[in-house]
């Protein structure tokens, strides 16, 4: 078995509005469209993913929040109806997904070895969270690639941002070790919105785009600043700014997916491809890709990540 690798990482936010706007057969409510620029961004991401042909998609979702450790879906096939508890009017989705349990177990094992608490979710009746499902649908609506679903441990909220993201860094490095050992060609999905200030009331017609705009100028400006740095590949600066971004833009990257993904990739200083940006109920969402095929070379993955982990813990 050849050594596995991470082909790419996508910033792949999960507003259920995008599924609602697309009107797939799996989603019960139907819309008149809406949020097209973001949905077109995902179309480009889908094309890129098609070309990559990964063995597995790993997704870290803030809407499976766990308090005792980092959890992994551990049932080979999960299916059911996922109704969004916050937007039940928009998202009632019949899902069916295949889990790469071997890789999930390897991630859990590597995480344990690295000092994290990890758990395998073995209950076949488990309802997969809407963040995981939305991200997976938007990036690969065919549902023909096995997945590894990872919970968001609540450490960034329960402890503090620095300690919490330090854990996500360790989780990312453990994820890379598991991918390498199992020989998978993997794509990582960070299911995160950027600025997360949002409106508190929903328009009568949710897809009325005349009501859609950034909730705050400050949040929008933060998003543009961070995206521009990402597009230039200035990821070191992105991570230096991340704690301030989280506070000032109420950024959802606090939940850890973004840090997990970049830690797994060794914080590549490569430009990200921006497929598109748009707001959903005022929040800032970017669909972006870090193509690791552009970052080949002896990247000091473990050492760099460890250094960053130390910096985050300060």
């Amino acid at each position: 078995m050849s050594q596995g690798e991470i082909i790419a990482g996508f910033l792949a936010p999960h507003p259920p509005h995008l599924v609602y706007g697309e009107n797939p057969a799996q989603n019960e409510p139907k819309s008149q469209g809406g949020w097209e620029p973001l949905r077109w961004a995902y179309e480009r991401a889908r094309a890129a993913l098609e070309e990559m042909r990964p063995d597995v998609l790993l997704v870290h979702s803030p809407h499976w929040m766990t308090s005792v450790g980092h959890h992994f879906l551990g049932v080979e096939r999960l299916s059911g109806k996922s109704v969004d508890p916050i937007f039940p009017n928009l998202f009632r989705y019949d899902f069916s997904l295949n889990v790469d349990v071997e890789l999930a177990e390897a991630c859990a094992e590597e995480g344990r070895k690295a000092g994290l608490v990890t758990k395998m979710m073995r209950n076949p009746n488990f309802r997969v969270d809407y963040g995981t499902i939305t991200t997976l649908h938007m990036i690969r609506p065919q549902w023909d690639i096995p997945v590894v679903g990872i919970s968001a441990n609540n450490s960034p909220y329960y402890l503090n941002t620095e300690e919490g993201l330090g854990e996500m860094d360790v989780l990312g490095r453990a994820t890379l070790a598991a991918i390498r050992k199992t020989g998978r060609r993997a794509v990582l999905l960070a299911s995160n919105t950027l600025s997360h200030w949002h409106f508190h009331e929903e328009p009568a017609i949710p897809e009325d785009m005349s009501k859609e705009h950034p909730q705050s100028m400050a949040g929008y400006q933060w998003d543009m600043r961070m995206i521009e740095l990402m597009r230039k590949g200035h990821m070191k600066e992105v991570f230096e700014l991340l704690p301030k971004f989280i506070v000032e833009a109420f950024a959802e990257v606090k939940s850890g997916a973004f840090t997990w993904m970049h830690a797994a990739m060794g914080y590549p200083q490569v430009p990200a491809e921006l497929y598109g940006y748009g707001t959903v109920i005022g929040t800032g969402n970017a669909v972006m890709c870090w193509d690791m095929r552009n970052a080949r070379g002896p990247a000091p993955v473990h050492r760099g990540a460890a250094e960053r982990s130390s910096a985050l813990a300060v």
Partner: protein
Amino acid sequence: MSVVSAFLVPGNPLPVLKPAVPAWGDLAQAMRKAGLALAASRPDAVLVYSTQWIAVLDQLWITRRHTTGVHVDENWYEFGDLPFDIHADEKVAAACVEACPKNGVHARGVDYDGFPIDSGTIAVSGLLGIGGADRPLVIGSNNVYHNGEVTEKLAALARDCAAAQGKRVAVVGVGGLSGSVFRTEIDPATDHFASAEEDRWNRRVLKVMEEGDVEQLRKITPEYAGAARVDMGFKHLHWILGALDGAFRGAHVHGYGPLYGSGAAVVEFKI
């Protein structure tokens, strides 16, 4: 007054999932006792607010008459499933949706097959014996942007909507006390409070409840909420206070104990 009984109960599903664990089983037993008192008060409906039903847009109310299914808790799935069969008083809930805008709150009804009713509401319904056709629920969401004051208004609004339909109600606030938890796996048989200081805080607050000193309770709640990491800032208490117009004579603590380090109590208020 149309409120015939009031209870504060924990929403963590561990007591119903693993009653063989002594601390958790004691809380389950306490809830069953509270359920008997609730049944004896003969309500027509039960006003339920669970900290675990999170909303961020609008105030949501369950308007679906009958919801059944199998729920699996996102944290405690290893201990089994939570089958549920819950009836809602859809007429009172619909009235709440209609009344909310008059109180400055946007609201929506939730009437969808497969809607994920939260672990707290499901666990409590079983142990208290509520949510059947004879004691339907009026379930309001916990909008994270609502403070205690708004939560009290919503509870009062729900009570008044029920009263306008000639219905007597029990009120149930579902949520925990202190919030520090163990972050590594423990042997459940050894469960205890994660923080001795938080345990002291819990006991102090419960004593104030027992004494019926609402003024003091309101005074110390903000500090308690911060010092003991109280579940959702103790908004579930505000739900009860709102329904009771901020007045009760005392309380009986049916049970108090740890749930994976956090604090939990089953309290029946004397009204």
